[in-house]
């Protein structure tokens, strides 16, 4: 009982202090109004703003409409109304705040306030105007203003007695139509993000991503295409790749697109066509046969009939999987001067002939010293080589022994000293063959060739496919040699034939590391 009395006394003291501290009715003050914490917000009035008056527009009747939000574009007086729904204070005032309404306990200064006198009776409505011209700036400032009703509370405080309504002072948005413009074309990036260039022009590698950058290029993605022109003729269009599209810090848009594999290498003009028009043009050089197709070529030395069986063994099995545009008697130029037309025109080359360390007889009298050859997309400046995999079904071509004091690795790949000389691994991924003599015996050669094709078709890595094929066939050769070896750049160690369009590496790339998997 004593504690209940003590609690009642404490509450009455607290309420008394609150009453002393609380200011009088808002309408009577121009200074800061503090809304004391703990005041009950009854909201007996439903406050609304008149959005449209009842009027006629020519012969169309526009009824009056009320709501809780109104946008005005010029300074004017605004009409409000409120209806009493429950017990109301003796007098009522309005308050106008910039931005949001103050929370309970928060101190905020209204930009305008005024007494509305005695409120209407229960369920009755009173309308009034607030002259916004007195405090709005001359031009729309884009801000919102909140209006509410307050009344005196018991003990001298105030009661918030309505909801808030919003008046925003802003102009109608003006539609600005996009105006696409092309700032630059960015060549295909190398593995480290550096742009590839050809004769100072962006170099677009076939089947790889390049970029076009500018403004208003991607307003309607479905209707945006990158066009390639020869003269004034559009020869190809490609859609940007959505996942490769990004906004640059400058606000420009960077569109990623895949260079069409069907374009012949050469110089083109590039532009972007959008639903808002076409951009200007910029030059770009399209190169490379890193195309989406899968091709292999087969070359046979005319020195022995068994070589026909080797290449034919592979071809018979694999031509149903990849296309085979070339099946020729071998010539040294296929790997040398004309490699772009021959070995480097496809993704895989299968060659059979007599061999020696880093040396292949393409045909009688036509030997090829492999350290003098360059194979793959980095074999020429215009990146038109395509070859990834090469098989030398021959003796000893993949020997790991030194030749004239030069280690095998330096014969096949570049070093700092030989970086400007030809070497087979100039974009090439994997070279396969034997590090020892190869015997055919009772058909080891053709067996290995067949088996290699089967392994590729089963989806094993290229490296595994060759090694296991050669190893499985070895026993048909009797009891000698036929020890397989595979040279590969490390990123391609587990690569399957279907992944031949992966990045090609060259000297200077951190991953340009030539490894060997071999039978000792």
């Amino acid at each position: 009982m004593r504690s209940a009395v003590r609690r009642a006394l404490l509450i009455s003291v607290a309420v008394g202090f609150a009453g002393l501290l609380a200011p009088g009715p808002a309408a009577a003050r121009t200074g800061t109004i503090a809304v004391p914490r703990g005041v009950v917000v009854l909201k007996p009035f439903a406050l609304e703003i008149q959005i449209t008056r009842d009027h006629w527009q020519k012969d169309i009747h526009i009824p009056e409409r009320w709501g809780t939000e109104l946008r005005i574009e010029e300074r004017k007086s605004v009409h409000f109304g409120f209806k009493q729904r429950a017990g109301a204070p003796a007098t009522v005032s309005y308050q106008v705040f910039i931005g949001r309404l103050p929370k309970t306990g928060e101190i905020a200064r209204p930009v305008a306030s005024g007494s509305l006198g005695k409120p209407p009776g229960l369920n009755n409505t009173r309308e009034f105007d607030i002259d916004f011209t007195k405090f709005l700036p001359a031009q729309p400032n884009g801000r919102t203003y909140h209006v509410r009703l307050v009344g005196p509370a018991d003990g001298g405080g105030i009661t918030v007695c309505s909801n808030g309504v919003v008046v925003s002072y802003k102009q109608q948005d003006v539609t600005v139509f996009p105006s696409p413009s092309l700032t630059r074309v960015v060549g295909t990036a190398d593995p480290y993000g550096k742009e590839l260039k050809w004769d100072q022009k962006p170099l677009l590698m076939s089947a790889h991503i390049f970029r076009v950058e500018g403004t208003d290029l991607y307003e309607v993605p479905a209707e945006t295409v990158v066009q390639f022109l020869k003269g004034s003729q559009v020869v190809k269009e490609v859609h940007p790749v959505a996942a490769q599209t990004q906004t640059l810090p400058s606000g420009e848009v960077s569109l990623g697109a895949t260079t069409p594999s069907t374009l012949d290498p050469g110089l083109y003009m590039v532009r972007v066509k959008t639903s808002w028009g076409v951009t200007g043009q910029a030059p770009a050089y399209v190169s490379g046969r890193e195309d989406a197709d899968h091709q292999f070529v087969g070359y046979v030395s005319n020195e022995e009939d068994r070589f026909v069986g080797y290449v034919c063994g592979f071809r018979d099995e694999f031509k149903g999987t990849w296309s085979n545009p070339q099946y020729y008697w071998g010539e040294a130029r296929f790997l040398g001067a004309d490699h772009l037309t021959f070995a480097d025109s496809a993704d895989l080359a299968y060659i059979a002939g007599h061999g020696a360390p880093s040396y292949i007889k393409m045909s009688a009298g036509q030997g090829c010293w492999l350290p003098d050859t360059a194979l793959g997309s980095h074999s020429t400046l215009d990146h038109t080589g395509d070859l990834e995999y090469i098989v030398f079904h021959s003796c000893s071509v993949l020997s790991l022994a030194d030749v004239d004091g030069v280690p095998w690795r330096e014969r096949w790949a570049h070093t700092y000293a030989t970086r400007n000389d030809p070497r087979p691994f100039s974009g090439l991924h994997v070279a396969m063959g034997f590090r020892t003599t190869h015997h055919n015996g009772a058909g080891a050669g053709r067996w290995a060739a067949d088996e290699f094709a089967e392994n590729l078709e089963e989806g094993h890595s290229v490296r595994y496919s060759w090694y296991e094929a050669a190893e499985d066939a070895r026993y048909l050769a009797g009891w000698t040699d036929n020890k397989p070896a595979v040279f590969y750049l490390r990123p391609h160690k587990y690569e399957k034939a279907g992944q031949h369009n992966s990045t090609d590496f060259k000297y200077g790339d951190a991953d340009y590391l030539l490894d060997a998997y071999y039978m000792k």
Partner: protein
Amino acid sequence: MRTWCLVLACFGILGATMAASAGEIVISANVQSAIQAEASRSLKQFTLDKGQMEHTRTLMRTWVSGSMDLSAASKRVSQRFNRTSYMQRSDTDKVRLPAERLQRTTSEATGVGRNVKRLATARLDPRAVKTLKVSTPVQMVFRDGASHLKFQKVKETRAKAALTEAEATQLARGFLDGNLLLKQTEMDKVGRVYVRERRINEQRGEGQAPDDYLVQQDVIFERHVEGRPVINSKIAVGFQPDSKDILLLEHFNWTPLQQQEGAEGSEAMTPRFQPVAAPAAAQLRARVEAKIQETSGQNFTKAEAVKAVPAWFQTEDSLLPVLVVEVKVTVPGRGGQISESYLEVLNLAGSDDVFFPGRTAPEAPTAAR
């Protein structure tokens, strides 16, 4: 007119003959001697016991089931090799040690009548298979062909040290014998055994020595019948040298010889065979020369048969006597002549076509423009 035609035809034949014998073919004395010996020998052709091969297949599939779920693995049928390949990737690595033994259960009957044989069947001992969780999925392959069974786990981890050849051979032999995967008789048994290494040679950086390391050791068992090698038979067991985990198990053309009725269980096993009429020495020499000519083409300077060894070749049904001839062919090469050796195999029991079953004649390439 007729005379001129005859003269022209003679020149044509002469030219063709000269072109065809562009290089010299030499049959060495020891090869000639081997040819004579084979021609005078009574040859035979053995019949194979396919029931035993099926038993080996059952055992091998049972063992493989400890690593792969063949019913869930992706599979591909090869018409060319008459086999089914199963491929599976697993997030766990089943370590299969050579000490693992299949548990023998009941026995199954094979054959009919008096020739019924009881073959032990087996089941896997799951406690012997140790399972490890691995971060990189392990790729496994199993090939199931008519006479070719091969399990392989692609796992290339650096070995700290190699097993000695004796140790590796003992482990492999114990595993094969203990699981009935190697069947021998007095006449048909393991010949030469040797160990091959699979190695990786990694580039470290320019000017630095490469990192050359061992990843797998394969023990290869060759087969001898009557003391002569079967050139296309082998059994291979590959290990990761540190853990001794079996990475390769291959059973290739090693079908036991069929025993004569009633010979089973007797002390001297007598395999079933058919006598083969040996070719005459001159005929055999002519075949060797023709084969060398056919294989060596038109551009060699010399092709010499330097060595000949009598051997066997296993087909799907039988074991055939063959003669293996080593030929050293010399062709013009970089900065002079290069010489290569290759082997020719001649079927002494008939046509050489048996070496290439189901194979079509290769289509010749064309000349590039």
